[in-house]
């Protein structure tokens, strides 16, 4: 058996899952988004669903909201992860314990985290009660609205908490691969500690930071369960809006749900391509 055939056979199970489930699902979604649903008598594909979606004010608000929560949570998580990774790469007493705590929430499902956020920072949550007990507020309803709010603060909080360790781990791995020699060279060439970090370390770990951030952005942009639990009634996150359209009793609304899903996927894909292009342009590759 040739090497090529053996590799293909070994990859076959994975290819079947990807091809059979993902590509078939994607194909059906695309067809329905173009309003090709023979069961409903729709046999002439068109762009009507896309036109309808892109002119719906609630869709545009949802798009903006999803972009906001994804961008804010990614940016905050990336900055905190960078600081954490720079600290955790050094050896100090208690480092192992702190590393464990940072990584602990990787194992906790998003939905559990979302319920935890509700218990902690909603107006009926633990912090509101503690603030009232401490005399800081007169009633729990005086506590700032941090969940189910139109700014998505609760959602952002949850994503930052959940994605921070993910980016931190990737950065720590990248930093460990790099070692300390490049920084040492920079110092011996006259760079201060911060100059060495800014001019050498950051550019060298930026592929890892960019890749991890792109993944986090794409995930938080298209995720459903957290905005459903912690989001406001309006605007809704894109995934929530799409799912609502999908579960409408009127089947004619399905193409719009599919169009929303396709637009969400296209934005994610566009981001991925932009990230890859940026890395290639800089002559760097993710470590």
């Amino acid at each position, binding site marked *: 058996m040739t090497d090529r055939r053996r590799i293909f056979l070994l990859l076959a199970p994975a290819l079947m899952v990807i091809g059979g489930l993902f590509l078939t699902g994607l194909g059906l979604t695309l067809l329905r988004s173009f309003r090709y649903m023979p069961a409903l008598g729709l046999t002439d594909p068109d762009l009507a669903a896309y036109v309808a979606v892109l002119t719906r004010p609630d869709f545009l608000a949802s798009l903006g909201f999803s972009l906001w929560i994804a961008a804010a949570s990614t940016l905050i998580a990336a900055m905190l992860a960078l600081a954490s990774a720079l600290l955790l790469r050094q050896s100090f007493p208690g480092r192992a314990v702190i590393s464990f705590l940072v990584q602990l929430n990787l194992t906790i499902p998003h939905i559990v985290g979302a319920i935890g956020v509700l218990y902690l920072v909603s107006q009926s949550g633990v912090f509101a009660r503690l603030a009232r007990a401490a005399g800081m507020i007169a009633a729990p309803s005086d506590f700032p609205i941090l969940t189910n709010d139109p700014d998505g603060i609760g959602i952002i909080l949850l994503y930052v908490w959940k994605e921070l360790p993910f980016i931190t781990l990737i950065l720590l791995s990248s930093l460990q691969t790099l070692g300390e*020699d*490049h920084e*040492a*060279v920079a*110092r011996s060439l006259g*760079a*201060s*500690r911060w100059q060495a970090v800014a001019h050498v370390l950051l550019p060298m770990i930026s592929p890892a930071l960019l890749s991890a951030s792109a993944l986090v952005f794409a995930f938080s942009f298209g995720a459903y369960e957290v905005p459903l639990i912690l989001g406001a009634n309006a605007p809704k996150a894109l995934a929530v809006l799409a799912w609502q359209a999908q579960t409408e009793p009127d089947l004619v609304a399905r193409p719009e749900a599919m169009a929303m899903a396709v637009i969400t996927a296209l934005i994610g894909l566009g981001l991925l391509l932009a990230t890859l292009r940026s890395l290639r342009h800089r*002559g760097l590759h993710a470590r």
Partner: protein
Amino acid sequence: MTTLGLAGLCKTYQGADHRALAGLDLTVESGTLTALLGPSGCGKTTAMKLVAGLLRPDAGDVLLDGRSVLALPPERRGVAMVFQNPLLFPHLTVAGNLGFGLRMRGLSPREIAARVEPMLERVRLDGLGPRRPVDLSGGQQQRAALARALILQPKVLLLDEPLSNLDPGLRDEMRCLIRGLQRETGITTLIVTHDQAEAVAIADRIALMLDGRLAQSGAPEDLYRRPATAEVAQFFGGVNFLPGRVAGGQFHATFGRLALAEAGLDREATVTIRPEAIRLGEGPNTLTGRVQEIAFLGTQSRVTLDLMATTLEALVAPDVAESLTVGQEIAVNLPAKALWVLPQP
């Protein structure tokens, strides 16, 4: 021109069971190229990093022109270091790498360009400034790393085994380049190597480190011909150690008496002679020995000799060795000038 001094430097790494440096004293004279020589793990790179300020010593001091620089961070010591690997910054072009230190000093892009171009020429990288490091060969990368340090005109240049990752041909080329640039600039340079031939070939002076301490420093010939200890002699390939007694300007051993060029005080002593200094044949300091073994080594042959239960090794031309047979008795000439009485510890 700066004199570098290391005074009683001690360093133990966290968790290590022995000291990397156990009181290293060394003076690198202004404008010289000194090789810090020693086997792997003897503390050479640690010493370099302490000079560069990348590590802090447990005890001792680093002095530039007699002034301690321990309190200064690496960027303010005026010491540039080139590592074993070129460690060029992959996100910068070759020119960007060369100009890095100047940029950190706040020079304008025009000033940087004015210094980078001539330096690229000096290390024969002209025209390669816009390329990325990954597009350079190993030798070109190491030349760029050297240029990146030299362009800063540091007070002291530290080279940590810069030739060890290069092919033999490139190594010779790089060695000549380092020697030439050092003579041209007069920068006080300390080069780390574990290769004694490389140290002899490149350095004005050699400082041999063994077990975290300075074993001997001096001109290459001093360490080669006049080792301070048996360990120093062994490091330089010395294998002949003859026990006996120095008396009246002669060396008295079980196998006979030998005249000495430099005898010193009468005492029990060990005399050493380099294998290549031994002549097979008659001469003024001749003994009789029996050929024990002959080994062909390529450009030379090693002849093992028995001098009344004392073993000597001689390196001779292969054609000389070919005329010998194992068990043959021959005259062994040990020139007085080549006999060195090891100093008392």
